[in-house]
């Protein structure tokens, strides 16, 4: 499928054929026109800015936050944000957050966290869930509401606990319990109970497998990593850089105004400042061991299960000025994509490889116009496979509908303050971590060649999805 074909309505537009690719390239220009017309048709669209962010340090599963619930952690991150920006008793336009591993009782997780926070109880909230893209999608949705003038301020966020994960009862027990609840007479109840078998009492623990394939995310990535011929050494190097960059950022005090300590943690528990290529090389592969090619993915170049929460304060320029708050960066644009991974047409985590070219084209930009790349490190192999696809002539022509390769990024601009391999990845909290981090970096950089510094965020997600966004220094 071609990148533009993906966004076109008709099923025939998603054709892989070269002729359709040409059509799609034509639509690319049309898409830019449409965006231009949209801007002209809505001249009153205003800016949505990132005021700042706050998160709690990320803990490894079974670590400092083992007994903390999603609501506990989200409230902790929220309260730190409120304290930092003086939002006590403030009625915020809307708060949106979510969790990927979510108890059914947490149907109103974000509203409950707001009620438990120092914000005005008249602040509305909603939950959102888009796997690992949850956090970034809350930022984009709320920024759009601000741009449209529907709200003046917003808090985006996300939280996840792999420690306090929900465990379901078996299907057999669940059906018996539901039938028991519906039964009106004693014989009906007894009949329902009589269907119970000993094996029904075993709980149904959550698993990381994709529902349609049964392969875990790591196994899916192992297929993609092998397909793009990403070496073990390249993955370990990326992981090593992530730890070094994050450690250096902590040492420089970069996170002092982005973090609130929680449960005794002051830094991300997964961070290994003293890790090295030699140490990473000693780890045994954990994914892709049954594939024909060599297994290259280890616990060192894959993100561990993590607990944590993050929040981002968004506002209109007027609201930020009226509250005497900083304006770090502008949320410029965002794009979601999905790939047909089920039968292996594309890798599970490769949707950003399609989303980024579409987003940049719509904004008249190329990779060279980006000053900071924040590519979420689900696995080192994910980042490297995405970069390899962008550098590939064939992929650029046949899949992206371009004349050749999409482009090469300057590695010195990639995840310069570390990313998920070092910090950890509490699924829904990663988007907020990245947006706040990037906004601060952009603000510090200010202008580049007479234009605002520009950053790109790319986050892959389960279900073959991806969400990407552009931020600019304000």
């Amino acid at each position, binding site marked *: *499928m071609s990148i533009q074909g993906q966004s076109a309505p008709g*099923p*025939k*537009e*998603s*054709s*892989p*054929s070269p002729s*359709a690719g040409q059509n799609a390239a034509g639509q690319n220009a049309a898409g830019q026109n449409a965006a231009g017309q949209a801007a002209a048709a809505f001249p009153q669209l205003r800016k949505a800015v990132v005021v700042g962010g706050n998160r709690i340090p990320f803990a490894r599963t079974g670590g400092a936050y083992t007994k903390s619930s999603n609501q506990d952690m989200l409230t902790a991150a929220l309260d730190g944000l409120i304290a930092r920006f003086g939002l006590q008793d403030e009625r915020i336009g809307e708060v949106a957050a979510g969790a990927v591993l979510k108890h059914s009782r947490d149907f109103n997780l974000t509203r409950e966290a707001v009620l438990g926070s120092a914000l005005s109880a008249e602040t509305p909230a909603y939950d959102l869930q888009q796997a690992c893209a949850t956090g970034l999608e809350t930022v984009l949705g709320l920024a759009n509401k601000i741009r449209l003038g529907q709200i003046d301020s917003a808090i985006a966020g996300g939280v996840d606990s792999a420690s306090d994960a929900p465990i379901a009862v078996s299907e057999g027990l669940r059906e018996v319990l539901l039938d028991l609840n519906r039964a009106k007479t004693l014989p009906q109840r007894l009949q329902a109970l009589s269907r119970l078998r000993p*094996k029904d009492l075993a709980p149904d623990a959550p698993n990381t*497998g994709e529902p*349609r*394939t*049964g*392969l875990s995310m790591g*196994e899916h990535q192992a*297929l993609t990593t*092998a397909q793009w011929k990403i070496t073990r050494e390249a993955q370990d190097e990326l992981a090593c850089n992530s730890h070094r960059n994050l450690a250096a950022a902590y040492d420089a005090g970069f996170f002092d105004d982005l973090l609130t300590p929680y449960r005794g943690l002051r830094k991300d528990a997964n961070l290994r400042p003293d890790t090295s290529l030699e140490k990473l090389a000693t780890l045994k592969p954990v994914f892709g061991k*049954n*594939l*024909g090619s060599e297994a290259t993915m280890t616990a060192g170049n894959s993100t561990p299960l993590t607990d944590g929460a993050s929040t981002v304060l968004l506002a209109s320029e007027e609201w930020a000025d009226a509250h005497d708050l900083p304006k770090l960066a502008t949320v410029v644009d965002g794009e979601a994509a999905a790939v047909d991974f*089920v*039968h*292996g*047409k594309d890798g599970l985590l490769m949707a950003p490889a399609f989303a980024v070219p579409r987003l940049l084209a719509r904004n008249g930009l190329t990779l060279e116009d980006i000053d900071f790349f924040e590519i979420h490190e689900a696995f080192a192999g994910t980042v490297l496979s995405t970069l390899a696809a962008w550098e590939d002539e064939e992929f650029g022509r046949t899949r992206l509908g371009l004349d050749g390769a999409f482009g090469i990024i300057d590695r010195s601009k990639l995840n310069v303050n570390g990313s998920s391999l070092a910090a950890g990845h509490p699924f829904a909290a990663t988007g907020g971590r990245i947006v706040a981090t990037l906004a601060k970096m952009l603000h510090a950089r200010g202008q580049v060649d007479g234009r605002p510094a520009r950053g790109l965020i790319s986050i892959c997600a389960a279900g073959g999805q991806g969400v990407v966004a552009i931020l600019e220094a304000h």
Partner: protein
Amino acid sequence: MTASQPVILGEMPSLSKLYVNAAATAARRRVLGTHTGTELPECSHEVRGVQADVANLTAYQHLIGETASDVLPAGFIHALAFPLAMSVMNRDDFPLPLLGMIHLSNKVVQSAPVRFTEALDIRTRVENLRGHRAGTQLDVVAEVREAGDGAIRWLGVSSYLAKGVFLPGIDKPSAPSVPAAFTAPDPTALWQLGVDTGRAYAAVSGDFNPIHLSVLTAKALGMRRSIAHGMYLASRALADVGAAKGDAFSWDVSFEAPVFLPARVALDISTAQDGDGAWQRSDYAAWSPHSGRKHFSGSVAAL
């Protein structure tokens, strides 16, 4: 194909009674040493006005991985017609032992969707008795029409082998076909099949063949462990192909090494599209990630 009038049965026969009767027939033939000839019965069996049970349909769809829509999955119709197919093979004039027959392959042509609310006329017959290097094989044909005199909506042809049975006058194929060497590709899916997989399929299909139910019942019939039902595996592969196949398609499967339970089964589904990107066919193959042996393969194709 026979021109004779079908035998109309008043209702769908009971599979459990058929299995018991088949066991009794097998015992009687062993004791008396009788056999009933070398030709297949010419008559077909028919049941009219068959309707699917919606609760059973939902349970089947959930087990197989289909969305619980109102359209009967092609494998569900196979299960619906199966007792009637068995009843033809259970006739006294059927020349092969029913118990222990091996399902070699299956082909279905679904020319139009069937909804659970529709009453169906189902007709089955046996044909094409022929030699196999390991015994004797035949085809069981099932036709499903809308009640009344409609066109065939669903046509199924199941090929079975009576292993070690050689009937006089039926030649073995001279050159045994050598299966092509199989090299496992990268999987697109991995199935974890628990030891209760056979029982779960029996509950939704009604096919309580002992070789699928438990280790003990399977051992009683000479298997070392219970095996997954072939139509369960093929129906899951069909569900995995997904909605692209549309309402009208052909679906075939060839079974190779049985899947002893519990098991991990790796699967590859590859899809072919035409120049406009429209789905044409999906080919699937399943194998053991442990031994690399192929369990089954087949395809789903647009009509």
